[in-house]
């Protein structure tokens, strides 16, 4: 398996023994080096989905490939070796209270049979990477939530995985800490070229770090695509959550338009309409302008750009 790997999920089904259908035929591909966010409400099956990738959950049907290798039916030593190539971070951090930060980070290395001195060296290096070198000797109880998650990220990176799974990694954190942890994820993705599959129920997380997004509902993928593309989709639930917002505006007969690109100003002017409200934000690497127009001639815009 290369350092950079894709995740390919095909026809994934998961039915629990009590008959609950958690995943009902999911197809999803995470391209090498990309961050894909799966968004959904609780009970949508997103947690089951991510846990199937490293087989913490047994799929009922379908296949999962990581770096081209079929992991769906792996067992024993082969499964354990594959799991070492897949890092995972958790909502509740899941650090061992009996171990210091450095010892927590060293756990995967211990499991991989790395010698003690080398473990120590690598653990400190990883703590440095996540900005916690000076807390190496602290126990989890002495760390804040954000620091714990940083240790969790360092631990997930310890065995040099090609893929990172993030299970609601920021849901237990306040918004400021969330931001810094997401920045860290983005940085790691860029520096190490890691492929990231993350699940979240917060559109803000998707907007901030993801390259692509998939909407999971009732065990099915309803919508998916690169952020910069999805955001301009008419009538899209994802777009509705991703688009920049403007404050409460009450206008009769207003027309909402969404324009991509740097030339939004000129193109809005070309309609001759009165711009009642507008908001511009960079989403998925593209400048997205959402505006509410009154009057003018919106036919000079593309049909897809006129939303309502």
């Amino acid at each position, binding site marked *: 398996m290369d350092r950079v790997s894709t995740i390919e999920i095909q026809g994934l089904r998961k039915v629990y023994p009590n008959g609950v259908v958690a995943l009902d035929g999911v197809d999803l591909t995470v391209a090498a080096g990309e961050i894909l966010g799966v968004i959904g409400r609780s009970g949508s099956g997103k947690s089951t989905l991510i846990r199937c990738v490293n087989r913490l959950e047994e799929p009922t049907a379908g296949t999962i490939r990581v770096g081209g290798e079929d992991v769906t039916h792996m067992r024993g030593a082969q499964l354990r070796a594959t799991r070492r190539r897949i890092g995972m971070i958790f909502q509740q951090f899941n*650090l*061992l*209270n009996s171990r210091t930060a450095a010892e927590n980070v060293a756990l995967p290395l211990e499991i991989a049979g790395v010698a003690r001195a080398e473990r120590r060296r690598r653990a400190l290096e990883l703590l440095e990477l996540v900005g916690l070198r000076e807390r190496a000797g602290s126990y989890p109880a002495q760390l804040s939530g954000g620091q714990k998650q940083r240790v969790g990220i360092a631990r997930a990176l310890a065995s040099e995985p090609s893929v990172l799974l993030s299970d609601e990694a920021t849901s237990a954190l306040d918004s400021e800490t969330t931001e810094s942890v997401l920045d860290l994820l983005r940085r790691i993705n860029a520096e190490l070229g890691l492929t990231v599959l993350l699940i979240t129920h917060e559109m803000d997380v998707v907007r901030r770090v993801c390259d692509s997004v998939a909407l999971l509902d009732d065990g099915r993928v309803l919508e998916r695509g690169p952020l910069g593309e999805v955001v301009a989709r008419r009538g899209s639930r994802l777009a509705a959550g991703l688009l920049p917002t403007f404050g409460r505006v009450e206008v009769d007969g207003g027309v909402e338009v969404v324009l991509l690109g740097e030339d939004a100003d000129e193109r809005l002017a070309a309609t001759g309409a009165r711009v009642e409200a507008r908001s511009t934000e960079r989403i998925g690497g593209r400048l997205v302008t959402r505006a509410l127009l009154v009057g003018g001639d919106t036919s000079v815009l593309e049909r897809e750009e006129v939303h309502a």
Partner: protein
Amino acid sequence: MSEDLAPLIWQATRETLVMVGAAMAVTIPLGLLAGVLLLLTGPGQLLAQPVAHRLLGAVVNIGRSVPFIILLVAVIPVTRALVGTTIGTTAAIVPLAIATVPFFARIVEAALREVPGGLVEAALAAGARRREVVTKVLIPEALPALVAGVTITTIGVIGYSAMAGAVGGGGLGDVAIRYGYQRYETDVTLATVVVLVVLVQLLQLAGDRLARRLSHT
């Protein structure tokens, strides 16, 4: 009588400590093993084995439901097979261990069950074997609770060991019955009680200290 009191109590205290120490030396490893298996063979656990789980559970429950004084005599054939004698301090160790292992096993099971499942999953996700989950996650994380469990169990064994006199095991309980009760030597009874109280207090103090030192939460 009272000039002989000190050596008598001293001898009895040593017998009690030998019985309790030896019984715990057997109980800790066996009870740990049984407790780990009780937990891991349970439904939804790493070694889920319904038949083995129920069997082990039944054995443990039977061990815990027989009153110690009955167990003491009931296992005499086992004692003879294991240590070659059915009387004396050594002979008392066998029934003490048999009575204590199931008790400690349940304490171990309960302590390990308190370890959050997420920690086990984090280790599995990192590629851990089941054995590593036990040695690197379950036992270290439950260590303060396990130490507290050893304290509780040891104090329980001290109580049981008072009945060891029934098989000539000696010890403080035996002295209290033979001298204090049967010969109306109240000072002997009092002395044994004082020694037992001090013993239990010291043990509890040491156990609490150790548990606190091991806890990083």
